[in-house]
């Protein structure tokens, strides 16, 4: 079946997710090369290319080991004249930034779009950094769509702009665009050019100091050229001609337009929407400020545009009051919504913006929380319990980014420090040296390939003392089961080389390496005990497949669910209280197992002292 994004009917209207629209924009621009490391809210961009590349073999797509590699990969293709895209979440750009900042110096000869998705409010991220500053830091052009239609159109334009400037272009979105859906009018699919050539020019591409000294001024010239384009760009438009000015970007534009339209004061306002927001279009901002009594900047995150507007005003001797972030105004925290924007508009322009009145809910009973939990049958639960069995609260547990971060919650309570991909392993030696305590660091298989290799080499070399547990569930779980270098993907018809984690660990010089299935609980606890007194870096690979992923594999047979035998159950609830498995529930004050949720992992059956939990299959056989 043809992938829906390959529909080649121009002007056809489709309901698309923001991320699908970005992928469609790239296809309309004739993208030939795409790479990514998955990360919410960007993951569905790469997912489209993953599926399409299996249908159309002339599109190259790969999941790279991390964002830096994926950017470098796309840069290589773009250096040979191809049109390439790389997509990542905001913190992924931190990983890729080393390459990006000097790639800005060399530029590229084809086109390269760097799609980066910020996550204000941190729906599924460890921070809410504002990635727009990377455009400033790298001097690269940046585009910011306000709608799903623009997400498609701007992506297409980003390729054209990149080719004109011979420079990577940043396409910066936020969750509310990536995970929004809207009606998109399609354009034509451009034929992709799939073969490139590389023209050697070391004095432009090999960034030794003498070359870079000559490339930096070239970059600044390109930035001037980009600024001229931004000044004329239709992505930076002015609406209305009132004396009250509002500057906005991204999703804030929708809130501003709706608020002003609803208020009925359209004639009092003038809106400057900045979609091509780096380099700052100074002339356009100046044109806008002309005749403005005062201006309000509406942007989520940091005062990036506000600072720019103030600079333009100051440079040109304007005294127009500029408002934006501040105690009574907009916050640098979290997401905006229509009410937040209306409130500040009302304050700054001293006019009513009617706000909906929510019902009183204060006396409603508290809704019990639903924190995300490890799934029923998740092998990470068994791995954490096995480690806890041996070390309890006495060890320090630096952890890492993935599903297994959820081990933080009660009753597992496993996770003492979490900042970035690979940092659990990276920080372990520091905790151990500083305290002399036992340290057990956790890392997932995908995260291990992403950024576990160099900290492990460093720890072995520097003779640190800690236990590293690699939670190997055979997939990138949290972001939707993307493959990584440790995964066999032959069943998908993909020709890749699977890398064995244990060999990698041994290759990095670790002497004590054990691989065990954590769902064989007694053996797993035994293994942790045996390793517990070792000095140096020991690695325990806890290997068992993600039950959600396993279900999708060919030839998979589900195990029978387990059940509680009421005649044996003493109702002490050790099973439930220790595991926190979501397959358990309480019915008439007794523990029951939901047969639809239970995957038959048998962890609880191994924990029950009365052996009161048995496979439903065995019961059937007995009868």
């Amino acid at each position: 079946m043809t992938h829906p994004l390959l529909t080649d009917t121009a002007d056809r209207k489709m309901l698309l997710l923001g991320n699908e629209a970005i992928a469609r924009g790239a296809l309309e621009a004739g993208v030939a090369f795409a790479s990514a490391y998955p990360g919410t809210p960007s993951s569905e961009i790469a997912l489209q290319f993953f599926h399409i590349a299996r249908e159309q073999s002339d599109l190259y797509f790969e999941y790279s080991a991390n964002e830096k590699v994926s950017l470098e990969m796309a840069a290589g293709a773009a250096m040979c004249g191809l049109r390439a895209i790389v997509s990542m979440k905001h913190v992924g750009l931190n990983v890729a930034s080393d390459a990006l900042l000097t790639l800005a110096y060399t530029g590229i000869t084809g086109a390269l779009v760097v799609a980066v998705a910020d996550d204000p409010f941190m729906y599924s991220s460890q921070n809410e950094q504002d990635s727009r500053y990377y455009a400033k830091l790298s001097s690269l052009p940046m585009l910011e769509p306000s709608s799903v239609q623009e997400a498609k159109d701007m992506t297409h334009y980003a390729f054209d702009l990149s080719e004109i400037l011979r420079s990577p272009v940043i396409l910066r979105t936020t969750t509310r665009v990536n995970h929004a859906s809207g009606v998109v009018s399609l354009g034509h699919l451009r034929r992709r050019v799939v073969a490139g050539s590389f023209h050697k020019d070391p004095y432009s591409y090999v960034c030794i100091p003498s070359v870079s000294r000559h490339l930096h001024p070239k970059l600044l010239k390109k930035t001037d050229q980009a600024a001229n384009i931004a000044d004329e760009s239709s992505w930076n438009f002015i609406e209305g001609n009132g004396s009250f000015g509002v500057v906005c970007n991204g999703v804030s534009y929708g809130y501003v337009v709706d608020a002003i339209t609803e208020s009925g004061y359209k004639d009092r306002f003038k809106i400057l929407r900045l979609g091509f927001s780096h380099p700052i279009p100074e002339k356009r901002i100046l044109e806008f400020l002309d005749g403005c009594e005062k201006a309000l900047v509406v942007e989520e995150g940091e005062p990036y545009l506000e600072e720019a507007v103030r600079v333009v005003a100051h440079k040109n001797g304007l005294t127009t009051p500029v408002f934006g972030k501040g105690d009574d105004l907009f916050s640098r925290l979290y997401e905006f919504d229509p009410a937040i924007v209306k409130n500040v508009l009302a304050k700054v322009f001293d006019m009513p913006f009617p706000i909906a009145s929510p019902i009183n809910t204060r006396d409603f009973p508290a809704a019990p929380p639903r924190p995300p939990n490890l799934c029923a049958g998740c092998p990470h639960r068994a791995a954490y319990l096995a480690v806890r069995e041996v070390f309890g609260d006495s060890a320090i547990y630096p952890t890492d980014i993935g599903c297994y971060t959820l081990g933080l919650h009660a009753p597992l309570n496993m996770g003492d420090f979490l900042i970035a991909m690979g940092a659990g392993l990276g920080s372990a030696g520091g905790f151990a040296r500083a305290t002399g305590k036992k340290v057990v660091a956790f890392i997932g298989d995908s995260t291990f390939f992403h950024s576990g290799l160099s900290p492990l080499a460093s720890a072995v070399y520097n003779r640190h003392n800690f236990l590293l547990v690699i939670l190997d569930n055979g997939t990138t779980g949290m972001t939707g089961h993307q493959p990584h270098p440790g995964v066999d993907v032959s069943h998908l018809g993909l020709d890749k080389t699977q890398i064995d984690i244990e060999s990698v660990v041994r290759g990095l010089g670790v002497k004590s390496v054990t691989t065990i299935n954590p769902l064989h609980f007694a053996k797993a606890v035994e293994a942790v005990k045996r390793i517990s007194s070792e000095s140096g870096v020991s690695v325990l690979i806890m290997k068992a497949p993600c039950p959600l992923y396993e279900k999708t594999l060919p030839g998979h047979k589900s195990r029978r669910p387990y059940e509680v035998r009421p005649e044996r159950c003493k109702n002490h609830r050790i099973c439930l209280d220790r595991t926190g498995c979501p397959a358990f529930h309480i019915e008439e004050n007794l523990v029951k197992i939901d047969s639809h949720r239970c995957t038959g992992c048998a962890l609880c059956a191994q924990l029950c002292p009365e052996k009161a939990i048995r496979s439903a299959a065995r019961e059937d056989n007995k009868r």
Partner: protein
Amino acid sequence: MKTTRIMIVAVGGQGNILAAKLLGEAALSCGIDVRMSEFHGMAQRGGVVESMVILGDGAGYCIADGEADVLLGFEPVETLRAARKCSARTLVITNTAPVLPFTVALGHAVYPDIPLALRSLASRVGKLTTLDATTLARLTGSVQSLNVVMLGALASSGVLSSIGTGAFEKAIQGKMKAPLALQNLRAFQSGYEACQNEIRGNSACAVE
């Protein structure tokens, strides 16, 4: 078209995102502009899933507190959790069958008295319609169809008069293969009729 804001809340796995997509596709096929946003970061892990569907005029993708014209809740506690999106004129349609959070099983939280809480909610919003969509879905062949039962209930509420049932049925057939589509069409009909019955005064699915 005048803007209509529909907030859909559910527990991960209940099919919230698909329901929003079907609603969006149905609207699009009637020539109505659609803007939606979804929040499902860790939904597969038992979390809360929210969809905001905005039909008609406007540019925003987000529903502020008190702005929802309709709150469609697939689980009663999730309906309560999202009640701040309602104003005194909001239509609330909720499934009454609970999905217990594991925090309740662990004894870390209490599942509230739902009929009592829904009575308070009913007294503050424009209208509250309740139905046991989980049972209705099971009766049509699969619990998984509770999202489409809820969509049927929404379609019969009268709020979306410009989207005919035919548009919903076409959307269901467009997103699913034949046998599954057939079963979901039954689910849609079942939710539709359940609310029609309530409107006619049959209290089978009313709260009081």
